[in-house]
């Protein structure tokens, strides 16, 4: 037998990426399992087993942080999905200034998160902020958006949606462009109304885009940190703390082992939510 010929798709193509990814991402991630079992002050490590995890679950605010994380992720990704689809439909319907409006909706995606946080913190100021001043003209006494414990989390979620809906819209616009106009023509010949066309043609056929939007925004929402940090820092008190900000605070306090344990917990939480979801989406896509 002659020697096996080399594939035109050699594995060394994967090598550079694999090296960078392994060394700078996988190794630290795996090391984090070890460090999460230590008391670690960057100077020394001391193995303490599961103590950090026990400590983490004793954190009085972990339960709240956990619920907040879920609420935040569901609210932001839900809103981005629904608003993204509606905006995409609107911005592909040939309305006046359509191209310009697309740019406007997408533009916040480009701006620095810290900058957006600072800007909205100013706009949401309870007494001087433009939002409450505008509300006062119509006779509404606006709340303290970012420092009212019942509202803070939702206010931050709103900012996140404001900043992120453009990306969802863009993905949906792309998804809509992939739907052949013939489906709509057939539906119209069958006598479908606009809303029937939306529910019976658009929604099912745009599903691949929905999968992308939901998955990306859910992962983003669960990991979300910088916009929370730029606006409320988890406050007032612990009212808008999410898992990522709880971890960050442990980290800031120098509890590196504990923070790393939190990292592992966040990782597991994301895996528990996202893996079944992708599996379910994949199964449904095969059915289609």
């Amino acid at each position, binding site marked *: 037998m002659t020697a096996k010929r080399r594939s035109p798709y050699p594995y060394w193509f994967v090598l550079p990426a694999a090296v960078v990814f392994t060394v700078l991402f996988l190794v630290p991630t795996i090391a984090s399992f070890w460090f999460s079992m230590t008391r670690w002050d960057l100077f020394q490590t001391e193995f303490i087993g599961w103590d950090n995890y026990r400590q983490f679950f004793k954190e009085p605010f972990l339960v709240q942080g956990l619920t907040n994380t879920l609420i935040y992720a569901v609210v932001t990704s839900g809103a981005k999905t629904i608003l993204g689809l509606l905006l995409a439909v609107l911005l592909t319907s040939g309305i006046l200034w359509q191209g310009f409006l697309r740019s406007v909706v997408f533009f916040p995606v480009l701006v620095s998160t810290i900058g957006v946080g600072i800007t909205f913190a100013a706009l949401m100021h*309870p007494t001087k902020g433009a939002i409450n001043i505008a509300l006062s003209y119509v006779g509404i006494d606006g709340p303290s958006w970012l420092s009212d414990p019942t509202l803070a989390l939702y206010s931050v979620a709103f900012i996140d949606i404001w900043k992120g809906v453009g990306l969802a819209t863009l993905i949906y616009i792309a998804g809509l462009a992939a739907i052949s106009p013939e489906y709509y023509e057939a539906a119209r010949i069958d006598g479908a109304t606009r809303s029937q066309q939306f529910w019976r043609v658009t929604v099912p056929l745009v599903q691949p885009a929905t999968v992308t939007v939901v998955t990306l925004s859910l992962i983003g929402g669960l990991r979300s940190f910088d916009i929370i940090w730029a606006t409320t820092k988890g406050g007032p008190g612990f009212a808008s703390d999410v898992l990522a900000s709880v971890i960050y605070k442990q980290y800031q306090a120098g509890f590196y082992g504990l923070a790393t344990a939190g990292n592992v917990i966040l990782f597991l939480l994301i895996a528990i939510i996202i893996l079944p979801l992708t599996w379910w989406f994949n199964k449904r896509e095969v059915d289609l």
Partner: protein
Amino acid sequence: MKLIPSAALLSAFIVASGMAQAETTLSVLIDNNPETIAAFDALTAAYTAANPDVTFDIEQRAGGAEGDNLVKTRLATGEMADVFAYNSGSLFQALNPSETLADLSDIQGNVIDSFKPVVTSPDGVVRGIPFGAAMGGGIYYNRKIYEELGLSVPKTWAEFMANNEKIKAAGKVAVAQTYGDTWTSQLFVLADFYNVQSAVPNFAADYTANAIKYATTPAAVQGFQNLEDVFKGGYLNEDFGVAKFDEGMRMVALGEAAHYPMLTFGIGTVKQNYPDNVNDIGFFAQPGTDAAKNGLTVWMPMAAYVPATSPNLEEAKKFLSFVASVEGCNTMIGAIGATGPYLIEGCELPTDVPASVADMLPYFQTEGMTAPALEFLSPIKGPALEQITVEVGSGIRPAAEAAALYDQDVEKQAKQLGLPNW
């Protein structure tokens, strides 16, 4: 291309060969508080003027917890600047100073003894020199409002609350709070430590040894109670949840609010932003239950340190011995004025200090009228205190519960430090 620098270097060498020393550049890391920057600019300029062979490369870092983290990371990774300024007391202890910081005990000649313990590592070596002025933690008040309403400086918490009631009745904001900067929410608790200590003299030691708790010590709970009372009394500014530190100072300076609990360094902000109103502000220690036992909780200044790994250890120490000299002290006063006593022997404050500073000085002049803040007596300070005090001060959590929660928070820190009995 390559020739030119070497030629320049060569000629520089010929010129310099007459001198004993080579050029040194000291890297410096300080926080980005404008006053720290101004003080350091003045100090380094003065030092370079006297020692032309030494230049400085000053880098700024964020303040607060963000900055704490940066300092720790850079120390641990050996990336620290030759000289850096950082808190003394419990935050200093968290740096693992015995291993990371250089021994500075031979440049303590002018340093007042009371400062040394807060920069002494567990192995008994002094590793820092004071940078800046000592501060008191108490309550700023607007003198115009006090005059207008005929109020007098309160000696007990009850009197303070009575004043607040009158101010509120006059349609003014009695107490400014600024939880937009969460650290400012801790003042009512931390500045109450003089009162805690006068009620429970051994509190700091027992607390460190896990023999006494906040929640089970009524005098300690009082600080949280103060916060709760002020909120419940409806004395706060409307935007207390988002306002920032400098707005708090503005409110008390311009009479938008009558009181603002703060450390005395705050007057620097007023001097910079509202110079005309500096003398409208007065200051008093946080009152306790007993008018006879009215004293001030004192914060030690920040300190300057040299990391043990610095390649320019000797030069850095020479510079810091200048900072810790009377001349260095006067340079700082010249740059940023006097906000409190400097802990350098023979460094006198100018006579024309702002009114609030003048209000503070008498406490220092009487034995027993001051007590160091808890963070200078005990290495443990729970990292979540700011959040907990925001909760109490916003009416989210009652004082007693908050004290218990804080005890829980402290436990982690104590374990991390490996203290006995935890």
